[in-house]
């Protein structure tokens, strides 16, 4: 198993590449969800204001 993490001496190149790509994927997922939540909340507030008038 330690051989797996050493990546034949290339660990310092392989793992940062995988790590960065994973971070980009996770940030994309969180970012998309947050964007939708924000837009939904803004739309909900607009609807509430309109129905009060």
């Amino acid at each position, binding site marked *: 198993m330690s051989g797996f993490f050493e990546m034949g001496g290339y660990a310092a190149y*392989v793992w940062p*590449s995988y790590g960065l790509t994973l971070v980009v994927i996770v940030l994309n997922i969180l970012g998309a969800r947050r964007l939708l939540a924000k837009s939904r909340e803004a*739309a909900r507030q607009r609807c509430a204001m309109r129905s009060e008038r």
Partner: protein
Amino acid sequence: MAWTWFHRLGSPPHVYAIARRLTPWFGWAAAVAIVAGLYGGLLLAPPDYQQGDDFRIIYVHAPSAWMSLMVYTTMAVSAAVGLIWRMKVAHAFAASCAPIGASFTFAALVTGSLWGERMWGTYWEWDPRLTSELILLFLYLGYMGLRSAVGDIQRADRASAVLAVVGIVNVPIIHYSVLWWNSLHQAPSVMQLGRPTMPAAMLVPLLIMLLGFTLLFVALLLVRVRAEILDRERAASWVAEAVAS
């Protein structure tokens, strides 16, 4: 009527509802494919006879680079449809593409740089492939900057769409750069008609990763486009029902 589908595609409430329904399917399919691709790429594929285990960077580098081009093409086509048919939904799709594309272009550049350091002895070179990919990142950032600089959403849609359409010339330049010019970067090994230059044990995980990233793009796009549609449908009566609960 044959054109009904086109009109339905242009209908914001319809697209909003479909996007909501399809998101989990694409999201989970992407997760399964990416986990399977990682397993195949890290554990099943043999080390390369020249590059050893360093070649495994391909399983994150090539899918990121593929995303950078595929997302840009989607963005430019959506923007063109939005301009030509004045279709709000198409602009919403185009706007949704940019942050996704920019982030994966960044990932492609950094993972490529890490790969290049050991293989070429340098993190960066003003090489045709690397330079045109960097220009792609600037195109995405310029598109996003332009959108946020123009306050009115309809004007932002039109102005940024022109930029996206013009910028498409960079896509074939990136793809063919390794063939047209003398580049450090290796020639394509997957997108070659007929004969990929990799053994199946290396190639199959890569194809699964490419599929997984593409499915992930669709899932992300479907979530983002709902937000963009809501922002454009300020006065529409269907919105109240869609955002209730």
